[in-house]
């Protein structure tokens, strides 16, 4: 049962082949067996999951079920879940029980999806390996010595290891696409504003976007259908109709124009990864697509610009974690300053502190113009590059990450090298565009992901482009050597 996709499970539930409760038990058993070595979950909500599953079975019996009623998923621990710990991978929220549901969680629940638990992540989504989590690193199901990528590494690993058929994630600079690539699963970061940020703990508000992991484009389409939509509680949410993402999945690709940015195939890209990517592009040519070289002249400025804007916003967003109202508070504070400095000093990990300090510095009087304002100008240029390119081509493709999964501990002490693993994904967040990663092969047993970038609100096109590839390949069906 655990190897089935969401679409297959939904069909099985519909046909009465098994109940949601049986399915949920099977997956909970699997999590109990395999997660101790993977550490993909921060919290497993077994009892509430079984209750939700039974409720789903009753709804189905009563003829009130929807397309996905009774299908289990997991949520990244960045989404607030009523009555369940929402830690954001941080000690500072280790004791935080959210008093409300994020819009994404609410929508999933309304669709009858069963939540199995909350997945591991880099602390406050700051990281590319899930190693900055207070709860310890998640391991890559393809190789337990490798990182799963990050920050949504727990969700990606759980889907790859078949602990859950699908999971939510968030992506600020690549946090869905890069772990999807490193774990060999399908991940989509929608257009900024497509999925509500209400209840999604903010890292960098102007870049954060919720999205989904699945094993297939078809599954991701089903999950996005549930998650997307305007939310009056999020002022940056887009008031745009949500198309039927499944309806256009099988459209032919003949005549599709794919742009290949030369900046994404140059120095820094692992040669073996490049070969795998070339092979996948050849597959697209066989599917009828036309490949054209394009240029994103300011691509090289994406990382420096991101590492000013994101820390600047994070320095402000994380100011609320002060030990006053909720979350971690230091023992015996002597006075207010002591309460602040020790609660935050003890509650946050090194990477979070690093970004808070960078951001605080970048916003300081006298530096604002040189850093924050300049970074925003670059951000506009990057957006212009993409818009110009997407006026010529339908989608842009390239590697999701310059390398396959690296070893645990390999880059954790070298932040700049770590930051470079998001070199192809970050610009997409700065532009606010949708981006997707699908598995297209392996290097030394570790998965390689192909990134496709579409125009604003062109998620249906990306899903279609991914689906057609998955219909003629089986990389997404390969099973990792666990359990």
């Amino acid at each position, binding site marked *: 049962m655990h190897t089935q996709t969401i679409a297959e499970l939904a069909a099985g539930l519909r046909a009465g082949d098994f109940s949601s409760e049986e399915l949920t038990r099977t997956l909970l058993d699997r999590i109990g067996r395999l997660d101790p070595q993977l550490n993909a979950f921060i919290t497993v909500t077994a009892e509430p999951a079984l209750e939700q599953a039974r409720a789903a079975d009753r709804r189905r019996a009563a003829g009130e079920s929807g397309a996905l009623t009774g299908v289990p998923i997991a949520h990244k621990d960045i*989404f*607030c879940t009523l009555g369940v710990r*929402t830690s*954001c991978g941080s000690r500072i*929220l280790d004791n*935080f029980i*959210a*008093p*409300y549901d*994020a819009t994404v969680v609410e929508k999933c629940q309304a669709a009858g999806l069963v939540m199995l638990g909350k997945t591991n992540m880099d602390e406050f989504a700051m990281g590319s390996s899930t190693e900055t989590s207070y709860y310890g690193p998640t391991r890559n199901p393809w190789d337990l010595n490798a990182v799963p990528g990050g920050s949504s590494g727990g969700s990606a690993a759980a889907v790859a290891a078949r602990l859950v058929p699908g999971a939510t994630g968030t992506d600020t600079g690549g946090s869905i696409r890069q772990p999807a690539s490193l774990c060999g699963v399908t991940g989509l970061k929608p257009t900024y504003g497509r999925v509500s*940020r*209400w*209840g*999604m*703990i*903010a890292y*960098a*508000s*102007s870049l954060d976007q919720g999205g989904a992991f699945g094993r297939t484009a078809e599954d991701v389409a089903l999950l996005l259908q549930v998650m997307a939509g305007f939310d*009056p*509680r*999020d*002022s*940056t949410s887009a008031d745009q109709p949500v198309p039927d993402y499944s309806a256009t999945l099988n459209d032919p690709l003949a005549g599709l124009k794919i742009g290949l940015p030369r900046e994404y195939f140059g120095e820094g890209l692992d040669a073996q990864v490049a070969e795998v990517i070339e092979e996948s592009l050849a597959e697209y040519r066989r599917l009828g697509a036309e490949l054209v070289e394009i240029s994103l002249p300011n691509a090289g400025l994406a990382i420096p610009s991101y590492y000013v804007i994101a820390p*600047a*916003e994070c*320095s*402000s967003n*994380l*100011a*609320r*974690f*002060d030990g*006053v*109202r*909720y979350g971690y508070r230091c023992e015996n504070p002597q006075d*207010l300053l002591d309460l*602040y400095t020790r609660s935050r000093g003890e509650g946050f990990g090194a990477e979070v502190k690093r970004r808070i300090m960078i951001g*605080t510095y970048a*916003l*300081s*009087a006298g530096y*604002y113009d040189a850093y*924050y304002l300049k970074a925003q100008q670059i951000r506009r240029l990057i957006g212009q590059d993409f818009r110009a390119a997407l006026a010529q081509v339908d989608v842009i493709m390239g590697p999701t990450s310059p390398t396959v999964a690296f070893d645990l501990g390999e880059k954790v002490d070298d932040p700049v090298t770590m930051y470079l693993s998001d070199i192809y994904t970050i610009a997409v967040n700065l532009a606010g565009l949708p981006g997707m990663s699908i598995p297209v092969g392996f290097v030394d047993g570790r998965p390689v992901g192909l990134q496709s970038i579409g125009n604003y609100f062109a998620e249906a096109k990306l899903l279609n482009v991914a689906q057609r590839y998955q219909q003629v390949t089986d990389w997404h069906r390969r099973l990792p050597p666990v359990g």
Partner: protein
Amino acid sequence: MEWETVIGLEIHAQLSTNSKIFSGAATAYGAAPNTQACAIDLGLPGVLPVLNREAVRMAVMFGLAIEAGVARRSVFARKNYFYPDLPKGYQISQYELPVVQRGQISIDLEDGDSKVIGITRAHLEEDAGKSLHEDFHGLSGIDLNRAGTPLLEIVSEPDLRSSREAVAYMKKLHTLVRYLGICDGNMQEGSFRCDANVSVRPKGQAAFGTRAEIKNLNSFRFVERAIEFEVQRQIELLEDGGTVVQETRLYDPDKGETRAMRSKEEANDYRYFPDPDLLPLVLDEAFIESARTALPELPDARKQRFIDQYGLGAYDAGVLTASRELADYYEALVEALGGEPKLAANWVMGDLAAALNKAGLEIAQSPVGADRLAGLLERIQDRTISGKIAKEVFEALWNGEGEADAIIARRGLRQITDTTAIEQAIDAVLRANPEQLAQYRAGKDKLLGFFVGQVMKLTQGKANPQQLNDLLAKKLKA
């Protein structure tokens, strides 16, 4: 040396919206601590602000009323600092692009002239919560009911030259925001408070002196006293060869002095940047026009109309239009009375104002409504009662004894206007006081008052004073 004072005020007016500026929690004053603070006000993880449309409408009305530019596009920014009653660690405010741009307001000076004061800007922002240090031993309490309450911060140009001008300006804005119905103006509850930037410079010098900012003044009297103290302090300092340091000061009303809170060196670097959770505020013409349509007659226009329409002097018109409620009361009274605007003005500014003042009531709480007061003034007008008796009737009205006519009838206060009756009373008094009559006729004119008093006493004050005077004069001459 002769010194010139330079003052600029930053006034915080709490907008009278039902809910907070970025959340749906109620804004009512005085609820139990933290009962009016929702997840957004508490700054819980994952919450997001959504701008209150009504707060924007109120800010636009204010902008239109001070003839300011209303920004078609303005931006909310985060002002970052740590304080326990600031739940998010930043205040959402407007920084580079405020919704209300440069405007002006005219104030009346004591010499009868008026002066135009520039208003640099007015911007929307959220209030912080309150720290309560008194109620807990060794601990501080935090009440977040006020957190997220909408404020309009109104920043003046440094155009004010004395504490009196500052108070006149503050009063003028106080009147205006209440006319507009955008702020209840309750200063005790902190709905209308100000920070004063004060400096002095040698008269004739163009450059400004170094200023001190006096924080959180919540009464007109405190504003006046704090500025006066501060001006004196700075002058003395400078004359002794010292220098004024730029700093934030607090006014202690008990001691009547200001004292340093923090200097510029210790000032926070607020690290303002545009709030990424809120899109720029874009206003279309229709929204601005609907705010314009909703504007009431403004205080200056109403004052001028009172002068033109009712023939009142500038002072009286100013007093009667000082609040919208008072002006409404006055107009209701004149209408009920079918005229007599001066009589009405005298009573509203005289007996009624005195009684309200004594009882500590606002005009809206007056136990004597405009209709009832009109009933009384009609009886003065048709000479049923004298002005003096009217004061007694007014007191009865105030005490809730019913309509003026009923009180006059029940107490038998109807004025005696019958010549024969008054003459009879005069004759009786003259007969009873032959000595005084003789003295009067011998030239002791002062005794006229004695006879008036005696006749009034005999008629229980009901004799028509004018008739009494005329008839008495005739009889005394005879």
